[in-house]
């Protein structure tokens, strides 16, 4: 597969690893946060941490779309399916995120909810066309990559006057999350986990471009390297971050220049701006309520807003007490620091959202990396 296989070459990886090992200064330690779940997955899937020297440590960030959904948002979706009787369409991983009362969308489906996994908003629109007598709600989650398709779906529904279609909008914003982490008292105060730099998102950046990261680099003096999702991309980005740290630089560099420009995809940004506006505040799992960190549907398209249509109010629900997802999403704790990791909480019976998707830190560590925790 062109432009994929070349970026997965194990031989090249070895040399990159060697280079990182040489550049990393033994007397200091490097902690880099990969913001994106896609990077988390690549790191675990390819066993990248085995290739890094012990003093270069990757910290998982809050960029797994399902991980940051608070329980109350899943509860709203379940309510739509079970109480309002809608056809609820959603992306696959969302199905297993734990909600209140031991439910999840998967379990709500087993209880009779008409919940359908879709691969694209186009599928959800088609389901709405095919079931004119039913209400069809698309449970829209994700960062800036999944937002433009949702915007297009609403524009399309508007044009077709598809009056049985609506969207439960839970789209969130990457820059707001990064700010929150950088301003989190824990992250700033807990001396043992300083973040020395960020691997910037791949797909998100194709949409928003590299410019939004310039603020962080300057304001918080943190180097950012935007990287593709392939393992060599990640290795290269780490190398570039080590260099910046060594050289005392804090710049935005673009390892993923083959797909990311400084300004991003203007057409996609326009569509998003047409349909959505900033939410005054939004609760994230692990990051608490973050001001202006999410999108809501504009008044003009209000008839496609499931929250308006079904007169729903968001109810905050506390996470399971034992669950450390919040600290993990902020990069303060690691999965293995959670007392119930791998026992009560497993991918089959996730207690927290980080145990659901393979982009979640706990699931990635459980599925790919927990051999490291074992006493040999």
């Amino acid at each position: 597969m062109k432009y994929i296989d070349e970026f997965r070459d194990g031989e090249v990886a070895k040399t990159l690893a060697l280079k990182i090992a040489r550049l990393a200064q033994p007397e200091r330690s490097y902690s880099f946060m990969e913001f994106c779940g896609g990077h988390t997955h690549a790191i675990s899937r390819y066993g990248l941490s085995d290739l890094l020297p012990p003093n270069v440590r990757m910290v998982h960030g809050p960029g797994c779309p399902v991980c940051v959904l608070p329980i109350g948002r899943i509860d709203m979706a379940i309510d739509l399916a079970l109480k309002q009787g809608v056809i609820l369409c959603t992306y696959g991983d969302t199905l297993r995120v734990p909600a209140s009362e031991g439910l999840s969308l998967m379990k709500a489906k087993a209880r009779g909810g008409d919940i359908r996994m879709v691969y694209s908003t186009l599928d959800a629109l088609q389901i709405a066309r095919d079931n004119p007598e039913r209400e069809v709600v698309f449970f829209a989650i994700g960062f800036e990559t999944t937002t433009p398709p949702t915007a297009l779906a609403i524009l399309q529904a508007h044009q077709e006057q598809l009056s049985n279609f609506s969207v439960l909008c839970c789209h969130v914003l990457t820059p707001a999350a990064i700010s929150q982490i950088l301003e989190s008292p824990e992250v700033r105060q807990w001396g043992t986990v300083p973040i020395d730099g960020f691997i910037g998102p791949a797909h998100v950046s194709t949409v928003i471009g590299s410019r939004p990261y310039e603020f962080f680099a300057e304001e918080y003096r943190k180097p950012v390297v935007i990287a593709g999702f392939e393992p060599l991309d990640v290795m290269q980005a780490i190398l570039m971050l080590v260099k910046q740290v060594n050289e005392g630089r804090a710049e935005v560099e673009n390892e993923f220049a083959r797909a990311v420009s400084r300004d991003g995809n203007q057409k996609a940004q326009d569509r998003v701006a047409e349909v959505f506006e900033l939410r005054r505040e939004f609760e994230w799992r692990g990051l608490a309520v973050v001001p202006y960190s999410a999108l809501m549907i504009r008044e003009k398209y209000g008839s496609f807003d499931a929250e308006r249509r079904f007169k729903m109010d968001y109810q905050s629900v506390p996470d399971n007490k034992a669950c450390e997802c919040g600290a993990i999403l902020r990069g303060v704790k690691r999965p293995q620091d959670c007392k119930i990791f791998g026992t009560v909480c497993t991918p089959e019976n996730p207690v927290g959202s980080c145990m659901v998707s393979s982009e979640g830190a706990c699931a990635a560590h459980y599925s790919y990396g927990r051999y490291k925790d074992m006493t040999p």
Partner: protein
Amino acid sequence: MIEVGCGPAGDWAIVDLGGVKKEISLALLDDVQVGDYVILHVGYALSKLDPQEAERTLALFSEMAESVAAAS
């Protein structure tokens, strides 16, 4: 990208990845040509892949490799 401009609004395309062909939407991306490579997400092309930049990145890897090989 093996076919471009199908569908009623002309913003559909067929992509080929290692022998797998799939219909995707070009509604978020302009000026796509047959032969272009694109970044895909949930059925949409999000951006074009710049072959020159890709080569440059790959060259960067190789360069590293050489410099390491030379050093060791």
